[in-house]
C-alpha cells in the first residue's frame, strides 16, 4: 500500500474499507464491530451523539489508535493497524477537534511543516543552505503560497498562530493539512464553535477542495444542516456501534438514528 496505489484507484471506487473494527481501552468499548467503506472522491460524514466514537474512528484510520480487532483495507491492502507516519506518507492528512497547531510558529511556518515529508535534502545540505536546498525551499514555498491564497490567509502569514482568533486557527489547520496535498483529508469537527458566516466559508473551502482537487473527505460534524448539505454518504455511530449508513436522505428518515439523537419515549 502506498500513495501510488491510492492514486491508481479510480474515482468512485473504495479507497479505505474498515472491516469489523473494535477498539477498547481496558473495559471501555469505544468502538464495537464497526464496518464501512470510504469511496475515492466523495465527501463522507461520520455523525453521532457525543461519545459515539467518531474521533476514535478517525484515530484508527490514521494510525493513532490501534484497533483491538478488525482489519483496515487501505488502497487494496489488508492491515491490522495503521502507523501515523505511514498514513502521512500514503496521503492521509487530518485536522483535530481541539486545534493542534504549532502555536509558537507563524502561519507560514505551520503550513511549511505540512510539506516536511516532501522535502528530501539532508541536514548537511540544509546547514550549508545553497543551491538545491534553496531551490527546494522555494518550490515548497510556492505551493504553500497557493494554499494561503486559496484560504485567504495572506494578511496573517507572519503572525504566530497562537495569537490568532479561533476561526482563523481552524482555517490555518485546514491549510496545514492541504499543504500536504493529501489524497484523503480527515476533518474532525472543522466547524465546531463557528458562527454561520464562518461555517459557510469553511463549507465552501471543503467543497472546493473536494471538487477541484478531487480530495476524498472524511468529515465529523455536529451541524446537521451542514452534514446533510455537503456530504455524499453518511455513517451514524452511537455508543461505538454503527446504527445506520447511507445517503443523507436515507439517514434523515432512519428510525434508529432519530431515536439516538432525540431519545425514545417508553
Amino acid at each position, binding site marked *: 500500500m502506498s500513495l501510488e496505489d491510492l492514486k491508481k484507484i479510480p474515482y468512485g471506487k473504495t479507497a479505505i474499507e474498515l472491516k469489523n473494527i473494535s477498539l477498547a481501552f481496558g473495559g471501555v468499548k469505544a468502538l464495537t464491530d464497526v464496518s464501512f467503506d470510504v469511496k475515492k472522491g466523495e465527501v463522507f460524514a461520520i455523525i453521532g451523539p457525543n461519545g459515539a466514537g467518531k474521533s476514535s474512528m478517525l484515530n484508527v484510520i*490514521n494510525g*493513532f489508535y490501534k484497533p483491538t480487532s478488525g482489519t483496515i483495507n487501505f488502497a487494496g491492502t489488508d492491515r491490522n493497524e495503521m502507523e*501515523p*507516519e505511514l*498514513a*502521512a*506518507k500514503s496521503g492521509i*492528512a*487530518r485536522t*483535530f477537534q481541539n486545534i*493542534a*497547531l*504549532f*502555536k*509558537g*510558529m507563524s502561519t507560514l*511556518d505551520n503550513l*511549511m*511543516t*505540512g510539506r*516536511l*515529508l516532501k*522535502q528530501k*535534502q539532508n*541536514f548537511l545540505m*540544509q*546547514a*550549508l*543552505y545553497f543551491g538545491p*536546498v*534553496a531551490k527546494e*525551499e*522555494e518550490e515548497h*514555498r*510556492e505551493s504553500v*503560497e497557493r494554499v494561503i491564497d486559496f484560504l485567504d490567509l495572506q494578511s496573517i502569514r507572519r503572525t504566530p498562530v497562537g495569537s490568532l482568533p479561533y476561526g482563523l486557527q481552524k482555517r490555518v489547520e485546514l491549510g*496545514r493539512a492541504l499543504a*500536504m496535498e493529501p489524497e484523503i483529508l480527515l476533518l474532525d469537527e472543522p466547524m465546531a464553535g463557528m458562527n454561520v458566516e464562518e461555517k459557510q466559508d469553511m463549507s465552501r473551502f471543503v467543497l472546493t477542495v473536494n471538487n477541484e482537487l478531487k480530495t476524498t473527505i472524511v468529515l465529523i460534524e455536529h451541524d446537521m444542516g451542514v452534514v446533510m448539505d455537503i456530504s455524499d454518504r453518511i455513517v451514524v455511530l452511537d455508543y461505538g456501534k454503527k446504527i445506520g449508513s447511507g445517503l443523507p436522505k436515507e439517514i434523515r428518515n432512519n428510525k434508529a438514528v432519530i431515536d439516538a439523537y432525540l431519545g425514545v419515549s417508553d
Partner: protein
Amino acid sequence: MIYKETGQYKSSYKSDHAIFPLLQDKIAFSTLMFIAFLIIPFVINSYWEKAILVPFLIFSLAAIGLNILTGYCGQVSLGTGGFMAVGAFSTYKIMTYFPDMNIMIIILISGLITAAVGIIFGLPSLRIKGFYLAVATLASQFFLVWLFNKVPWFYNYSDTGQITVSERTMFGIPVTGAEAPSYATYLFCLVLVVTLSFAAKNLIRSKMGRSWMAIRDMDIAAEIIGVPPLKTKLSAFAISSFYIGVAGALYFAVFLGAIEVTESFDIMTISFPVLFMIIIGGLGSMLGSFLGAAFVVTLPIGLKFLMVDIVGLSAVTAKHFEITIWGLLMIVFLIVEPHGLARLWSIAKEKLRRWPFPY
C-alpha cells in the same frame, strides 16, 4: 523613522526568506563583522581576550547548542557541563594520539564525538518530557563528570587529574598553549563561531528547524504530519551536543589551557549559567543566544567595576553582592520578560520604526 522597512519590497521568495531580509539589518551585521574581523584583532589585548571576547564567543556557541535543544526542540537539558567536558576530553585524547593533526580538525571531531554521546543521553527523551527529562539530563551531567574523574585513562594517568593543552598552530601561528597571541585565539574562536552560527541559522530556517519546532509545540500533530518524534528529538540532541562539544573543546584548548573536570565543568559553573543565558537571551532565538552570552559574561565584570572601583567595596563583599544581584535578575527576567532580551530588542525595533511618533 530610524528603523523603517517601508519601500523594501521583496520580489522573490528567496529574498523574503533571507537571514537578514531588511537593509538596516544587513548594514548593521556587515559593520559588526567588519569590526570583529578587521579592527578588533589589531587592538585586542590580553585582558579583553581572556576576560570578555573569547569567553563570550565560546559561551555563545554553547548557548546556541542548548537553544537548539531547549529553545527550538523543547527538550530541557541540564547536562551542558557534562557535554562540554566530553568535547574537552575528546580534544585532549585526540591530541595525545595524533600529535600532528590540525587543531581545527581535532575540535570538529571532538564535536562529533560529543554528538554521539548526546544521542545516547537523548534516548530517554522519547519516553519522558519536561522536568523528568531535565532530571535525566542532570544524571548525564553527574555521570560524565564522575567518569572523567574516575577513569585515569581520560587524563593520561597524570597525578593531579588535570589535563593540559599542548601548543598547536594554524598557518604557523600558535592558537593553543601559553604562547598563543591574543589576536590568534580570538580569531580562531570567531571564525568557528561565525561559521557554525550561520549553519545553525540555516538549519533552523529549513526543514530540520521546522521539524524541531513542530515537536516542541505539538508533538502529536507533528507525528501525524509525518515528523518522526524519536528521530527528530535525537537529531536535536546530536546537533545541540555537537555545538556544545565544540564549545567545550575551545573552552579547554583555547581559553583555559589546563582544566580539572569537577571544577571547570561543574553544574554551577557551566550547566546553569548556559541555561540562564538562553532564558535571559530568549528561548528559540539565535540573537538571544548571543545577547544572553554577552550578558552573562559581562555582568560580573560590570558589577565588579561598579562596586569595587567606583563604590569602593572590598572584593569579597562585591562577590557576595554579585551572586545576590544575579539571582534577583533571574527572577526579574522570568517575571517581567520571559521571552528574554531578544524580545526586548524586537520591541525596541518596533519603537524605532515609529520614532519620534508614539504610534
